[in-house]
């Protein structure tokens, strides 16, 4: 199962990167969203997918799934949510101020 999940994470990364390399900001944000999904799945897979009980202690249960990756992912979900919403508002403001959300039109090489 881990191999299948790794491949799925790989597909999420690939599609995310492809979206990231597009021109429009909205597509770029979609790309980051896909990449963060891929990363979360990746962390979960790395923590072994052996079936056991959910990590909520109960009398008599011997084997649980690994709780640490879950805690890490939970933190990561919240952070990526914050970043995504910031990016979205940034996209909105950029489009409002410049009249375009095309990254190729937003570049300025004169001052670099």
């Amino acid at each position, binding site marked *: 199962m881990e*191999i299948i999940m790794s491949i799925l994470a790989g597909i999420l990364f690939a599609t995310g990167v492809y979206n990231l390399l597009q021109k429009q900001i909205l597509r770029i944000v979609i790309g980051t969203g896909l990449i963060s999904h891929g990363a979360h799945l990746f962390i979960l897979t790395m923590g072994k997918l052996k079936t056991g009980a959910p990590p909520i202690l109960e009398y008599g249960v011997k084997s649980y799934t690994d709780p640490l990756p879950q*805690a890490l992912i939970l933190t990561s979900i919240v952070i990526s949510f914050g970043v995504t919403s910031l990016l979205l508002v940034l996209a909105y403001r950029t489009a409002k101020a410049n009249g375009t959300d095309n990254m190729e039109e937003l570049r300025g090489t004169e001052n670099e």
Partner: protein
Amino acid sequence: MIFTVFVPLLVTLMIPFVNRWKERIHTGWFLLPIPLAIFIYFIQFVGKDFQPFYQSYSWVPSLQMNLDFYLDGFSLLFALLISGIGTLVLLYSIYYLHKSENLGHFYIYLFLFMAAMLGVVLSDNVFALYGFWELTSFSSFLLIGYWHHRERSRYGAQKSMLITVFGGLSLLGGFVTLATITGTTSIQQMIEQKDLIIGHAYFPLILIFVFLGAFTKSAQFPFHIWLPDAMEAPTPVSAYLHSATMVKAGIFLIGKFAPILSGVPSFFIVVSLIGIITLCWGSFMAVRQVDLKGILAYSTISQLGMIMAMFGFGTKVAIFAAVFHILNHATFKGSLFMIAGIVDHETGTRDIRKLGGLMTLMPISTTLAVFGAFSMAGVPLPFLNGFYSKEMFFEATLDFEGATGQLMQLLQTAIPWLAVFGSIFTFVYSMYFFFGTFRGKYKEDELEQKPHEAPWGMLISPIILVVGVITIGLFPKLVNMPLLTHAASTVANTTIEKNIYFWHGFELPLFMSIAVIVFGTVLYLTMKKWVPVYDVFPGRWNFNRVYDFIVDKLEEWSKAVTEFYMTGSVKHYVRNILIAILVVGFSVFWFTEGMTIKTDNLAEVTLPEILVAVTMALAALATIFTKSRIAAILILGVVGYGLSLLFVMYRAPDLALTQLIVETVTVALFLLCFYHLPELKKLDRDPVSRGLNGIVAIAFGAFMALIGISAHSSSWFEPISGYFLENAHDLGGGDNVVNVILVDFRGIDTLMEIAVLGVAALAIYSMIRLRRDKEAK
């Protein structure tokens, strides 16, 4: 001794305050006593029974960098030149520079330079020496660019800076290598370990580094090109830095390190060959110049080449002649520069084609120029010091002790001829300088102002220098035993004693001198006929062109390189970053054979999970292929909900819950923004770009998948989660282990994550509310 270096430095701090009174009194008068006092301090050491002595002050003892000062005969000669000519130049500058100039800057730079130069010649510690060395380059840069509103001054300053700092940095490389090999930073202790250094594998490197430093500073071929352009500096600066002191720093360096480096044939070959070439090239080029200071600049180059060549010969006669010529050159070249400045000051031009017939108008300057120019030419008169050292130079070219090997013998035959060749041109340009300026037809129309004799104050310094020329010429014994013998002995590291005679008897050096004068006179009289030759030969083979080409191309190429990768497109940058990650990542895989697949520890494959996974994969792919952005947003939602389903299946209830909520809110946000964003435009249709993007994306996905698979297949140690499961109830007081980890075991993460959310919220708020542009009004 240390005070002589630091007093000028301290004085620079006081100059701005003194300069405030310049309305009444020229700033230079206040400063005149300082170099004079230093000169008087040093002159008391002159004497037959001079003994070197040593002073040391701690600076950075842990790195063996200390302010070690060592006064030997050679340093004493230089210290006297620096302070003595410094005094005269200061006096001259008082009359040369008007009060309306920015005098504060001028004298600060000049004193900075004086301190640095004294530091160079007195330092025994190589790193302190290097520090002072760069300070001379820097202050010389400031002085050349003193009239910074002129474009030529800025060009000359930049050129000298680039070339001398290039040499200075290579010198630092040589010093570091020397210090590493010997384990000491003191030059005296390095001399004691001479055999170790010469036998070391890095010795050729040290030789190259030190040579580069010395040759760039002393304007040796082909690094001589900065010196003629440095003539844009005020004339007192040219007289001081570019004839008497700074350009001799490279000579000083070779002389100081001669006891260490001169033991090998390559030292002889390189130094004497470069010196002789510089002598010939400089004197040849000098004849071609039309600017008085241009003639003197090339003349300086050529004379420095001569001194350098003599250090290369390394025989006792040669070293003594070199030391003697250092002193002589400083006297007559300093006076000639000052005379050129006077001519410029009184006529308004330095162009020799416009000058002529000034003899009757400026009798004193003419008299002084006779002595200077004839001494430079080496005319055999008993009261001209230039003749003595020129004659000794010829004597030195004729005998080398123990020259073996084919190249050495070839040099041995070639050097006297080259020396005569160079000296003929020296004679020609000296005559050209003198007769072109002071004799011939007086061209009244071409001069900007009516020339008349300079004020006395301006003449004092050249008079003193010319008196020096004559005194050394008439009574060479005055400087021989008390000063020159000690200096030459220091360089040779043995005792050298030599008597200076005017009359050697009928010997080969005398005939060489006569040949120089005869051929020189003939060449000078027929000079007009040679003009076309000069225009072709040095005009074509010009090293300034090489320099300009290098400087231009460096700028062009670095601009081209930067523009190649700095396109301004985020897409390109992201792609470059990803490609770099892929190259590094895959090569690590390849070289460490890190790819392993183990199938024995896998979880069971079940159908529902496969179904969810396939749905997610299809949805992810669909985000790329869909034409409509709203569809892309909704399909992204499918991926998110699929992920939360997977969390459910993998026994992660908290994750599933959070993912569900976050995904809902995110999709809502996407839709909100989508509403405000401009209409959908066409996707990237360029096939090359699409293809490249596709390849990068697929490669990156494959790379991550491979990492996942091989990381899973190689387990190094047990996870630490057992601890959390065992202690969550007892230590954390909770049964939901994930939540206990979040708020108890690893609470800091949660705190920071809250902070992230808070900052994001504030940023969003400020982005929406705060406007500075006209949109807000």
